[in-house]
């Protein structure tokens, strides 16, 4: 009977043996999602206004603006791609008031903290230490963190502004969200963001002026 009990416990342990895949196989490029407002005709827009800084939301309503060389590189890339689609960038306060489209760039840096403990499916294969180990076990709490970055591009339709000065809600006609790991290296992170911007436009061929 004792043998059967041991076998039963072994079965229960083994039943939890869902094998995790190799997540290192995933590439480091950002996941890029885009969406547009159904029915919108992008060809009717001719000009756009793009600020010379990237908004970084802070706590509550506090926000800062990212303006360094890396930010300028990202802004230039967006501008280059918009120009390539037949749009004309306008500058200055007058340009902001007369442009057909407004393009907002936002970057959200986030640190994700994870606390774990107990039974744990680690990165190392527990078979590495011998076939007699069945799983990992932390008898105390363990905390680790990882950084992620999210870049948002939003095209808002400024032609919908009211002439009588009453406030209206800005319709976002195109939206791009690029999200991935941040490596704490400005050059490497900027390279990933540049590729994400290129991808956002590549998968949105409808964002163009004219035919």
């Amino acid at each position: 009977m004792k043998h059967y009990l041991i076998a039963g416990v072994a079965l229960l342990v083994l039943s939890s043996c869902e094998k995790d895949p190799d997540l290192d196989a995933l590439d480091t490029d950002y996941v890029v999602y885009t969406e547009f407002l159904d029915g919108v005709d992008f060809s009717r827009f001719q000009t756009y206004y793009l600020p010379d800084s990237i908004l970084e939301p802070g706590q509550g309503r506090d926000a800062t603006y990212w303006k360094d060389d890396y930010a300028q590189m990202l802004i230039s890339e967006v501008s280059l791609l918009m120009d390539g689609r037949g749009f004309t960038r306008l500058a200055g306060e007058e340009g902001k008031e007369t442009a057909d489209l407004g393009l907002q760039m936002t970057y959200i840096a986030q640190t994700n903290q994870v606390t774990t403990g107990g039974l744990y499916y680690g990165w190392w294969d527990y078979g590495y230490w011998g076939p007699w180990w069945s799983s990992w076990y932390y008898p105390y709490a363990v905390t680790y963190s990882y950084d992620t970055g999210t870049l948002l591009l939003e095209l808002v339709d400024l032609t919908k502004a009211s002439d009588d000065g009453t406030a209206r809600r800005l319709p976002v006609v195109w939206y791009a969200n690029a999200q991935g790991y941040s490596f704490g290296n400005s050059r490497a992170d900027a390279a990933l963001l540049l590729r994400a911007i290129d991808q956002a436009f590549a998968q949105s061929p409808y964002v163009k002026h004219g035919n």
Partner: protein
Amino acid sequence: MKAINNRLFALLAVVAVALAFVTDAAAQSRYDRVHFNIGWQMNSPFSGGFADKLSGWGMAFEGDYDLTERWSAGAFFNFHTNHKYVGRQTLPVGGTGALTTDQQRSYFQLPFGVAGNYVVWDNAHFRPYVGVKAGAMYAKATTYYGTGGVYDKSWGFYVSPEVGAAIYPAAGKRFGFRITGYYSYATNETATLTSPIDGQSNAGFRVGVIF
């Protein structure tokens, strides 16, 4: 309807566990008629294409009671995980969205229930058989991408015909080896990202011990 299904599966689980206990109790009085199989399993899902890469991340457990010299009945459970890496691609989402990412997919299956076997040829060293397993299956489909992932769990009905043979190196002894080839089908439905699964077929083989 879902609540009824959950109760039905819970009932099936209770019946399976009870059957296992009955088998265990019978082992003490009719030891020779009770035997167990523990096997390593190679499995490949081949419908749907969600995670159809052949893998050996699985095991099978079965306890049987010999009703006659050729017929036996018992209970079983097994588990298996299959993975599939999908390279970076752009997926349409709805009518207006697009998502670009690579994916690491994982499909975990845990069927359990009752088993019946018929020995087609009885020899002291070699006993080929045909069998069928039926019961319920728990499945979890996970798609990892970017810094996270999505998963979906489901319950379904499970049926699996199989052919195999028990090989006894020493005639008249309990210990032997068992090889099995099987096909299985489960009605589980899961949906992650853009890869829904509506019923899952598998084929594979098991190599194990019988005692």
